């Protein structure tokens, strides 16, 4: 898609930069690298690595003294509105990072469709410039993987439970059975509102319990909000809580055991998936890198228009 190449009508100030960039690109050839993840350099693991990337692309390992990036040659982002095709790409990406992780240990995973302008040298430069931050991130994630936990409660089961010990609701219930046809509508509304409040409170309480329990068993826990962001499967109908946890193998076992006790309470159903590369935790582990990176880029691009 030519869209990604340059901003048509991007403004007057951009013109000189544009032509400058064009010259650079022409001398280097159109070069780009799809970046999957960063790992500690390990030449044995690199030799063992037998994996392909998105769309069957062949992966290459680009290394500095201490770090390696796993990439494939690609200049344009992947674009499609065909769900099946995109889903295949996502699986390809995931498989690649999983294979790399098996060979090298926990990677710092990058978001799908992250494409760096430039070739292997650019990647090496970037690895070197961010070596400290990337190394620290790898250390902090080492031996741990991400797991996703989603708990969905059955609304009716919750309603039954919360209704039992709330005086206000019991009061409204009595009032409702005594109410004349005229006032019943209003009382019903009050009743429903009270019930919703109680259910929500209960869900929040259960959610907090879950966080505390998960925290006591793992390295790190993030709340992900209660609605799934991608309605790929049917959306949960009941109150839901979602978490990402960072755990090693034994911590993962402990989470699994705990989740067994959660299932069935208040009609809860539990979805537990993983191990994922630490997608949720990587951005924070890398936080300071982006500043360094930006500065590096600015230095590198110092040939831009005069200020």
């Amino acid at each position, binding site marked *: 898609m030519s869209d990604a190449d340059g*901003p048509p009508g*991007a403004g007057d100030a951009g013109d000189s930069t544009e032509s400058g960039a064009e010259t650079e690109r022409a001398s280097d050839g159109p070069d780009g690298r799809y*970046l999957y993840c960063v790992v500690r350099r390990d030449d044995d693991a690199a030799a063992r690595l037998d994996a392909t990337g998105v769309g069957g692309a062949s992966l290459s390992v680009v290394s500095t003294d201490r770090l390696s990036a796993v990439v494939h040659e690609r200049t344009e982002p992947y674009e499609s509105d065909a769900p099946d095709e995109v889903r295949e790409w996502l699986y390809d990406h995931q498989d690649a990072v999983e294979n790399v992780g098996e060979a090298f240990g926990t990677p710092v995973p990058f978001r799908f469709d992250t494409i760096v*302008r430039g070739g292997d040298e650019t990647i090496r430069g970037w690895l070197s410039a961010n070596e400290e931050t990337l190394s620290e991130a790898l250390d902090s994630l080492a031996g741990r993987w991400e797991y996703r936990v989603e708990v969905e409660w059955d609304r009716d089961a919750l309603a039954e439970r919360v209704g039992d010990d709330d005086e206000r609701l019991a009061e409204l219930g009595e009032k409702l059975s005594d109410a004349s046809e005229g006032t019943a509508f209003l009382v019903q509304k009050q009743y429903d509102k009270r019930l919703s409040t109680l259910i929500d409170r209960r869900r929040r309480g259960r959610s907090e319990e879950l966080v505390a329990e998960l925290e006591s068993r793992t390295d790190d826990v993030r709340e992900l909000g209660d609605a*799934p962001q991608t309605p790929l499967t049917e959306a949960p109908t009941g109150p839901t809580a979602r978490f990402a946890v960072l755990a090693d193998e034994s911590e993962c076992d402990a989470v699994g055991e705990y989740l067994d006790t959660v299932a069935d309470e208040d009609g809860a159903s539990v979805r537990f998936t993983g191990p994922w590369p630490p997608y949720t935790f990587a*951005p924070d582990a890398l936080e300071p890198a982006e500043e360094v990176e930006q500065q590096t880029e600015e230095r590198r691009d110092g040939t831009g228009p005069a200020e």
Partner: protein
Amino acid sequence: MEPAPPSDDDAVVDLVDVLLRDGAVLDADVVVTVAEIPLIGIKLRAAIAGMTTMTEYGLFEDWDERIREEQRQREARFDSER
């Protein structure tokens, strides 16, 4: 209980969530992709949620185009600041 592996059908919702929303990101500057705005994800989500009618009416295309325009302007601003 054992976690369902990422290849499991049960995990597909997490697959899309983690790959399109999470993961480390590079500066828009270094990267070719439309950073932070996973357009593929939006199209994918729309199609899978059965919101094809919205796509038919062009709502997503408009949105898509608007996001791209914003991105272009951001990039242009970035260039002119140098």
